[in-house]
């Protein structure tokens, strides 16, 4: 049989690249590594500089000679000074209280809202779901002005309870959105099976949805934790005295005395403040990714 025009030999132009799959893959990997190394270098430079500076004495930091990326006389003094400082302990304690309460509040509100919006068909549920997401798009730099009036009206200015009241405006919309996505990925037949098995709506939520959606819940919890732990704009606007300050503003406002910057302690404080989120991410990263991508990849 004569060769057909579609045989590989007759169409060298089209098939000339066939067989170079391995080379293509190698180049893709090379480019991927180059991009990753550049972005990692850019992203890691500030924390690495913080780490290096935190091990330096004030004299070494002030010294203009020598390479700033090398520690000549390492010390843990900055860390010990901070850890022993009752004011720093107060910042840490405030941050822990605020974050714990906000995370619990956020998760209770988000799970209930997402369950209702994704599963209980009622008039306006779609509009509400979109509304929840739109709320997230309003930046806190705009929201803090009206919120200042509200928190002031409630007499909660300069109090961690004022922060506990306003942080959910940052966490609830996004967490609800994550949870809506996750709940939507759970097949409808599962709740129908539970309904037929005799479950009430609250039982269905507690015994089916929450256990099944655990990766999503963990993802949302991590998000709420990170946002409340790292919030900066609201505490800057609402808190004025050190006893009510969380770590984020405590470190930068109280470690600068007059025009003297305690750089070593500021860096050590910032690193200590960043430690809890890093630990949480390190252990729960897989759940976080699974939770964030659930709505996008599953029916």
């Amino acid at each position, binding site marked *: 049989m004569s060769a057909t025009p579609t045989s590989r030999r007759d169409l060298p132009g089209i098939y000339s690249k066939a067989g170079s799959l391995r080379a293509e893959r190698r180049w893709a990997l090379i480019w991927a590594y180059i991009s990753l190394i550049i972005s990692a270098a850019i992203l890691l430079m500030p924390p690495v500089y913080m780490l290096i500076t935190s091990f330096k004495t004030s004299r070494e930091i002030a010294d203009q000679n020598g390479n700033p990326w090398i520690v000549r006389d390492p010390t843990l003094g900055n860390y010990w000074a901070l850890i022993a400082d009752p004011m720093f302990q107060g910042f840490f304690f405030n941050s822990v209280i605020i974050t714990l309460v906000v995370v619990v509040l956020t998760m209770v509100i988000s799970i209930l809202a997402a369950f209702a919006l994704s599963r209980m068909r009622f008039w306006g549920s779609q509009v509400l779901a979109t509304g929840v997401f739109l709320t997230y798009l309003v930046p806190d730099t705009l929201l803090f002005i009206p919120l200042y009036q509200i928190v002031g009206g409630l007499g909660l200015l300069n109090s961690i309870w004022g922060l506990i009241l306003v942080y959910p405006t940052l966490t609830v919309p996004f967490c609800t959105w994550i949870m809506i996505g996750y709940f939507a990925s759970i097949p409808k037949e*599962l709740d*129908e099976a539970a309904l037929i098995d005799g*479950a009430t709506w609250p039982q269905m939520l507690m015994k089916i949805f929450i256990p099944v959606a655990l990766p999503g819940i963990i993802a949302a919890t991590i998000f709420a934790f990170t946002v409340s732990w790292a919030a900066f704009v609201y505490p800057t606007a609402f808190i004025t005295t050190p006893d009510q300050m969380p770590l984020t503003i405590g470190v930068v406002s109280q470690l600068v005395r007059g025009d003297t910057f305690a750089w070593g302690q500021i860096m050590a404080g910032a690193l200590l403040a960043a430690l809890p989120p890093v630990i949480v991410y390190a252990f729960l990263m897989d759940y976080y990714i699974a939770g964030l991508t659930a709505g996008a990849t599953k029916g």
Partner: protein
Amino acid sequence: MAQVSLRKIVKAYEGGVQAVKGIDLEIADHEFVVLVGPSGCGKSTTLRMIAGLEEITSGDIAIGGTLVNDIPPRDRDIAMVFQNYALYPHMSVYDNMAFGLMLRKFPKAEIDRRVKEAARILDITPLLERKPKALSGGQRQRVAMGRAIVRDPKVFLFDEPLSNLDAKLRVQMRTEIKKVHQTVNTTTVYVTHDQVEAMTLADRVVVMNHGIIEQVGPPQELYHHPATKFVAGFIGSPSMNFIPARLEQASGALRLHLPHDIVLNVPAARTALYQPHAGKDVLFGIRPEHLTDDKATDKANTAPITLKPDVIEPMGMETLVHFKLNGTEVSARLDPATPAAVGAPLSLIAHMDQMHLIDPTTDKVL
């Protein structure tokens, strides 16, 4: 156990689309009824209305003589098996089966007894500690059935339970379902789009189309005496041939004039029935198994046809041949030993005592 009554059931969605258009159906105690029809015919919606998962727009549903229109699914005393199994992924097989009983606060010992008994019936005892993700499709479907059995409900509802299984497993599970029904004898409503499943499982088949019931009856009755062209075409595989024809009177007998000058004699037993339609256009319906090679020894009520096959499909136990008759697709079933070649004339006989005539204006079988 109980009977199920549907009276003038209507399901309309927003925008006025009616999925179910006022159906009436009585399902007897212990009966196995299969709702069958193409996609969008309203069969699943009907099942879901019986389950209480869809609200009914109008009409009444009664289970065991109790009106259940406004009763939530959990209080209807029904159990349902879903197409995708709907097993709780975080629970073991045992917990999946026990879940409904635990919610109803059954004593632990009774739950254990029922779960183990159901597991024994379904042959899944070794799987009780496994999670659903560690099971095959067939095993998952057994667990889903187990979850229904342990509840000992008044009615079992099956929503296309075999559609996710491969062909071989489907046949195997079909037999399992029939066996389970013979053991527990619970009233069962089963939805499928597969007419073979409907025919093999059902005490009575309900054929639905466009939201209405086309015909209800035992499988053999639907096969031999379809009421409409839709039922005639839907039941049976390959489906019935419909050939445009004209019914003519000729010296006291009736004859069918088909395209290509084919003339077939109508059996004398049918003359009185078809007499009023003499001189009219009709559709001649004949199943492929009744259009066969002329090896039959008893040639009474048969009529010869010679056609040229376009496609020949050897199936092993039989050979299917396909023809075009004036644009109409026609299939015939042959003995595999019969020599047939594409384009070569093939002598067939039509078993006219198995024929159907359909009024093309009403689509009713005459």
